[in-house]
């Protein structure tokens, strides 16, 4: 019963957060310099008088602000994120079409980054002093300090020009077959560089966290007990310490979702990956506000969902959190 109230509270909290994002979007539209209808139509100067009148009617811009915000919230809640007057399409359709490539990129990068990061963390914890530790420290620092677009362009230069084994742009080959296995292979080849860029950016943080968490666990009593039992250092590290050290890593993976999405915006721009990030970039250039605000809302939705999933996962893998209820 208490578990149910807890879940209900989490869901309510998530809904409130999203409502706040809607209100923020509304405020942003109204705070932007100029008439809100112009803002919504995009500053292309091409909107006809009829279009403007239609926008005013649709968004209720002739009504008092308090009414407008209700109208706006109700529309977003029913899945209507407005219309892109550049594409002449509903924003929702535009976004949904771009989601699969971005999710593919993000999830593959997140998985790889977590795996590489934990592996490096294990190495770092196994030899906490000396050159190995320095090397890993340097790697994680460099991974943080290198701007994403720079890493991306450098990789593009390395694997596109000096050792051209991967395609450097887009998601499909024009001439490749569009079916079955060959399609999957084609997409994978195109995925390699963007995914590698995002992985490098994130693996650094995972390795730092995993190493710190492992070292902390290694100083605990249960590890001493495991060593006293006569287990090999490998068994101690991978069998005992790793399991507990993974908890913060899971939390981190959930929290990384927002930054990862931001990284994807830049990486997609560099590699011409046809996802949400590319759409953001194009919408910024065209000042296509409905798309931009729609993506802001949608990414907040993704982050909130990722947080909920992390909570649930945490609950699943850490028995201590379960005892509380």
């Amino acid at each position, binding site marked *: 019963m208490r578990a149910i109230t807890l879940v209900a509270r989490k869901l309510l909290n998530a809904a409130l957060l999203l409502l706040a994002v809607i209100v*923020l979007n509304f405020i942003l539209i109204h705070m932007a310099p100029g008439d809100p209808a112009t803002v919504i139509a995009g500053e292309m100067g091409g909107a006809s008088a009829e279009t403007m009148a239609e926008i005013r009617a649709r968004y209720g811009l002739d009504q008092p602000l308090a009414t407008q915000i209700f109208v706006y919230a109700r529309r977003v809640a029913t899945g209507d994120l407005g219309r892109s007057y550049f594409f002449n399409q509903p924003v929702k359709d535009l976004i949904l079409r771009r989601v699969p490539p971005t999710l593919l990129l993000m999830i593959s990068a997140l998985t790889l980054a977590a795996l590489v990061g934990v592996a490096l963390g294990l190495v770092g914890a196994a030899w906490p002093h000396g050159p190995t530790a320095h090397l890993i420290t340097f790697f994680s620092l460099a991974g*943080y300090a290198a701007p994403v677009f720079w890493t991306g362009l450098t990789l593009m230069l390395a694997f596109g020009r000096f050792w051209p084994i991967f395609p450097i742009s887009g998601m499909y080959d024009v001439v490749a077959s569009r079916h079955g296995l060959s399609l999957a292979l084609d997409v994978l080849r195109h995925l390699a560089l963007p995914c590698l860029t995002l992985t490098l950016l994130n693996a650094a943080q995972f390795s730092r966290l995993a190493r710190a968490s492992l070292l902390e666990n290694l100083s605990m009593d249960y590890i001493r007990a495991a060593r006293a039992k006569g287990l090999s250092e490998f068994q101690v590290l991978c069998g005992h310490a790793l399991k507990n050290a993974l908890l913060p890593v899971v939390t981190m993976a959930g929290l990384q979702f927002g930054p990862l*999405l931001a990284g994807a915006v*830049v990486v997609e721009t560099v590699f011409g990956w046809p996802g949400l990030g590319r759409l953001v970039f194009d919408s910024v250039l065209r000042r296509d*506000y409905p798309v931009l605000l729609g993506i802001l809302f949608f990414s907040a939705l993704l982050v909130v969902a990722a947080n909920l999933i992390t909570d649930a996962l945490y609950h699943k893998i850490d028995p201590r959190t379960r005892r509380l209820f």
Partner: protein
Amino acid sequence: MKKRASEIAARGATGLGPAPFAPRPAPERAEKGAPASVPPRYPLEPAPRALARAREFWGRFRVHYFSLFGLVALAFIGLAVSLGPVLYGIDPFEIVSAPFMEPGGGNPLGTDYVGRDVLAGVLSGGRASLSVGFFAALFTGAIGLSVGSLAGFFGGALDAFLMKVTEFFQVLPTLLFAMVLVTIFGPTLWMETLAIGLASWMSVARLARAEFIKIKELDYVKSAVSAGAAPRRLIFKTILPNALPPILVAAAFDVSFAILLEGSLSFLGLGDPNQMSWGLIIGQNKNYALDAWWTIFFPGFAIFLSVLAVCLVSDGLNHALNPRARKSFS
């Protein structure tokens, strides 16, 4: 032997002043008939203390060679960025030669896709990148510290409300939120700074709140409360000085994050178009990356080096200000 011990106590073990627990000479009693001014029981020692503290700080900072390297690199970058454009004397926006000239020869770092000097761009581009980074971090620190300290100190409904607000801002992906703000309100340096600050103050707020909650429960704060100190005095005089070190470290680290964010914004074409910046050079030349690596490499390396330097310095600050802290790069 006894004399020596008292000597040490008087001079302090470090020779920099009285040791913290050294017996102090009893204050001279006011003579009869003298004005009725009560001498302070614990004499204030402003100048020597501050100096001793600075020396102690430097002593802890300089033993970390990586942090020293960061400090030297930061000083070098600062000098290059502030004096470089004047000494080099070439306008970063001026077309000085044919496009895509390779490094060496007339243009030490080559020219970009319209024939502008890359070295001039790198030198004067640092001004925008670094100042936006610095001021955005200042802004981040100010918002974060206000929100965090209020929430941590007062607790209750205010805390719940402020933490909800913080949680709300954390839901918005930082870069995306900053992009939307700059797109709507116009790409100027100040808007960039504001947008970055507004999009990234949350971690400082959480840290400040945690510190305030921790310190609030300590005995010396309780004694100040029982002595009748007002909330304002408690916040600014009693708690803040002790909560500040980790927050300063976080703010220093935030400078590096803000530099990266500024780089991304101007790379995406959302920087001030009238201000040269490192991200802008890369963004404008990105389509020619395969043919002119130097237009990408040098500005990117400048960002990399500055972020690295700021990280290392903030790590050194951490060692020097919070000697017992765990979080650290090395």
